[in-house]
């Protein structure tokens, strides 16, 4: 079974440029997450989707960040324009979601997209 797939693995851009990250979750996983991981820190939630609906985007900086999951499967996270402080690893994760018992809270992570803003 394929895991969570993210691309690109690495991206280097200059500040003020746009950048986009793509994520394909595990087949059948209704819930998709984007996490931000700064160097030496634990992941912090940016946005959570249940199918195509963003149900928790309270920590997404909406002035420059946007995300979509149009068909409830794969998702794109965009930053425009990028700032120096956006340099980090962007992690995508998925889980079963749905009824208690089906979702034990375990998240399955992709390898992440490492962004460097110069």
């Amino acid at each position, binding site marked *: 079974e394929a895991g969570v797939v993210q691309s690109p693995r690495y991206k280097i851009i200059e500040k003020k440029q746009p950048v986009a990250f793509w994520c394909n979750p595990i087949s059948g996983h209704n819930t998709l997450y984007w996490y931000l991981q700064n160097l030496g820190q634990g992941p912090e939630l940016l946005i*959570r989707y249940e199918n195509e609906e963003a149900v928790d985007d309270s920590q997404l900086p909406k002035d420059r960040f946007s995300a979509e999951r149009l068909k409830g499967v794969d998702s794109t996270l965009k930053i425009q324009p990028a700032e120096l402080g956006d340099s980090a690893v962007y992690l995508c994760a998925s889980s079963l979601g749905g009824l208690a018992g089906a*979702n034990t809270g375990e998240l399955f992570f*992709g390898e992440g997209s490492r962004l460097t803003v110069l």
Partner: protein
Amino acid sequence: AQTVTQSQPEMSVQEAETVTLSCTYDTSENNYYLFWYKQPPSRQMILVIRQEAYKQQNATENRFSVNFQKAAKSFSLKISDSQLGDTAMYFCASDGGSNYKLTFGKGTLLTVNP
């Protein structure tokens, strides 16, 4: 807001020995999940072990076990017979009863020395 605290930024252990990583958390919920995730260098994060708060018995997965102290809100990870492949960042996480939103600690970098 829930918090998860890992007070050991770095630890090291000799191969085949035992090491314990500490974690404390804060939540007002009575039932919740706790997790330890492992993140090897430049590789994806994977689940090591999970504990349900309403279960008094400590979870065990092969060489990995936890010491869950609910009243003290403590959740430590014990790795027995440490192997070189255990070298990684270890993150403690709690869902705070939400069943979907994990809050992570800052992590402990564990190095297993030959």
